[in-house]
């Protein structure tokens, strides 16, 4: 069966520091991968999605970037965090054979101080 991992689970970072969040998927190949952000009490905002290694599409212009160095690895990064980057970050995957369904990881809580 497929599983999705995210780490770290919780992160507290100072403003201006760099960021690296990692997401990996097991049990599938060539998944579509997604990064979402959820501010407190609000809905999901799609940040990036990837249909293959090295292929990244950005949905919202901001100081975040994403990379996909391996088939089942998706990384969210920032060179300098802003206060507004605080939130809950969710990684999701979708398999080619799964009729458009997304499955989500456990998420990372990021607090920027």
């Amino acid at each position, binding site marked *: 069966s497929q599983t999705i991992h995210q780490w770290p689970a919780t992160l507290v970072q100072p403003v201006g520091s760099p960021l690296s969040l990692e997401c990996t998927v097991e049990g599938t190949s060539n998944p579509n991968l997604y990064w979402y952000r959820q501010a407190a009490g609000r809905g999901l905002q799609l940040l990036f999605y990837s249909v293959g290694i090295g292929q990244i599409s950005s949905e919202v212009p901001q100081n975040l970037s994403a990379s996909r160095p391996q088939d089942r690895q998706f990384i969210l990064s920032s060179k300098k965090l802003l206060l507004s980057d605080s939130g809950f970050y969710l990684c999701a995957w979708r398999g080619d054979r799964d009729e458009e*369904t*997304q499955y989500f990881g456990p998420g990372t809580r990021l607090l920027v101080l």
Partner: protein
Amino acid sequence: AQTVTQSQPEMSVQEAETVTLSCTYDTSENNYYLFWYKQPPSRQMILVIRQEAYKQQNATENRFSVNFQKAAKSFSLKISDSQLGDTAMYFCAFMKRGSYIPTFGRGTSLIVHP
């Protein structure tokens, strides 16, 4: 562009009773999928139920069922025999067939009271 509207920001229900969460969507597409996700206090998003638009039969998963009205573009979720563990945010989502990107509603917060 598609939009998904969840008109009930908050709902509450007594344990063991039935509750219905509403969702409407706007699209010109004919082939698409609809989803309900649950986000409990742990905040992990969990798929509750999925409906293919070309299927007339309403999807069911144990205590969860949907009322899919394609012409009305309505996709409500019914939770029967509500349990305390059903307390969560519920998100409705739409995805056009062949698309990579779903559209989510803003969510409904459901509280189940003992």
